[in-house]
């Protein structure tokens, strides 16, 4: 009797230990995994799913990097080695290990017409449909790897120095980056040629960032999520007929009253000169 009690106690203790250690291991493992996936400013190959889904789907096989035309093994016409665009994250890269990414200042994406990296992806982390146009052809111009942002204070074109390096490097010249002319009031007789990025066209290839002449590029590609803002649904462009429709769609009972002042209709406030 005593012996069977002992056995039961031992069994319970061992079970508890195992479960406890498993839980501890699971927590540490989750914590570590969560931590390594938190590397937000990373540019993925064309067609990559939204970062969160991409991390779920990527099986870390490297087929995209091997399909990329810009690899050390591929030679330029003069016989020199070509540096690889797509790298597979390794220890020390501070990116999710084994996932493909590129750094525009090292080697940008050269936007191959046939996008060799996308169709080879076996898991669907690189989505072919997202880089296919209406005609059903692969179209690199549909890619949205990121969005270029111009930092006006360090861009020398905004100082009045003539530079159009990014504009000329852009594979979609005059579409993704255009030059805006403005008068240089300081000198009175010169023009500014200011680069403007158009987010509906920019693919985020990074050729502009690579071409930028400043010590640290004044134009740089960030994942779209980090290079864009969001106005919110309650701002309506009154001059845009399509956008104006949204104003009519709003139901009055869904309009939230956020401040004391907004409880009064604007007309009342103007007519009765309510003071707050």
């Amino acid at each position: 009797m005593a012996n069977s009690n002992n056995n039961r106690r031992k069994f319970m203790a061992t079970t508890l230990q195992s479960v406890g250690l498993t839980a501890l291991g699971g927590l540490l493992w989750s914590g570590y995994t969560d931590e390594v996936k938190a590397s937000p400013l990373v540019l993925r190959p064309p067609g990559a799913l939204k970062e969160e889904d991409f991390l779920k789907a990527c099986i870390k096989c490297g087929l995209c990097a091997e399909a990329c035309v810009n690899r050390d093994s591929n030679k330029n016409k003069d016989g020199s080695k070509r540096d690889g665009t797509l790298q597979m994250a390794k220890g020390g890269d501070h990116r999710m290990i084994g996932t493909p990414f590129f750094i525009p200042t090292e080697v940008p994406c050269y936007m191959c017409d046939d996008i060799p990296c996308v169709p080879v992806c076996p898991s669907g982390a690189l989505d072919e449909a997202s880089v296919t146009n209406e005609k059903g052809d692969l179209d690199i111009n549909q890619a949205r790897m990121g969005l270029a942002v111009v930092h006006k204070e360090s861009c020398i074109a905004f100082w009045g120095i003539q530079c159009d390096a990014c504009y000329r490097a852009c594979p979609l010249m005059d579409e993704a980056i255009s030059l805006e002319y403005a008068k240089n009031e300081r000198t009175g007789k010169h023009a500014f040629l200011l680069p403007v990025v158009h987010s509906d066209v920019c693919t985020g290839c990074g050729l502009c960032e690579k071409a930028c002449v400043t010590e640290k590029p004044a134009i740089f590609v960030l994942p779209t999520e980090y290079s864009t803002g969001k106005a919110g649904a309650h701002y309506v462009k009154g001059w845009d007929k399509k956008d104006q429709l949204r104003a009519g769609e709003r139901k009055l009972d869904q309009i939230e009253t956020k401040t004391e002042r907004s409880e009064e209709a604007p007309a009342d406030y103007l007519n009765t000169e309510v003071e707050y």
Partner: protein
Amino acid sequence: MKNLKYLLLRRITQVTLLVLYFGANAYGWHILEGTFGSSLLFGTIPLADPYTTLQVLATGFVLGADVLLGAVIITLFYFVVGGRAFCSWVCPINMVTDLANWLRRRLNLDKEEVNYRFLKRSARYWLMVLGLIVSAVVGVAAFEVLSPITIMQRGIIFGFGAGLSVVIAIFLFDLFGVKNGWCGHLCPLGAGYSLIGSVSLIRVKHDHEACTNCMECKVVCPENQVLYMINKESISVTDGECTNCGRCIDVCNDDALGFGIRSFTNKTKV
């Protein structure tokens, strides 16, 4: 001089595979591209690791058909050649742990074997399930974040970086820590292949009549608990944890061991 037939065959297989994978990236060969996570054979046939595939599925992502088909192909293949044949004939970490194990024997580190209470051979199955749970919770194939197998393989193909430390860590753990610590106790990928191996076709067979009980096989076997039948019964090694490495066959001087087809008839006798 002991026979090294299977050991040499294994090393040739392992190195050849790594060279093919390396060549795919470095020279654009289309024989074996990708990594053990997912590969392309001859540029057309998809291959995928079953456990890695399960992890991605656990994250909630519905995988492309290529990977699913690849995982089925690999599973069927190892149903035939013995599940953990992957571990001993393919996995590059096997070369690291075998080296650690060989050094252990040379340096007599086995004499004072410490009894590691909490590191049972079953730990790998816990880790296997845990890996799927963590994948589901965090939304990333969890074992792939730490896997020394693909870290080493990607290191060879694309460059190591700090990933080399993971491989060294496994070597030190197996040499100074637990005997067969990584492959025999922890690796969840191997655990997955053990499950496949528990029903696989090609198995090591033991001939009780020929055995002289020298126990050379047990010394060299990385999973020697599967050789419980030595000098007892003439049956095949049916345990899925057997890696089909053939080292026991190499070192056996009595021809008591050899590869054969699993016999389904004597199953009831066991």
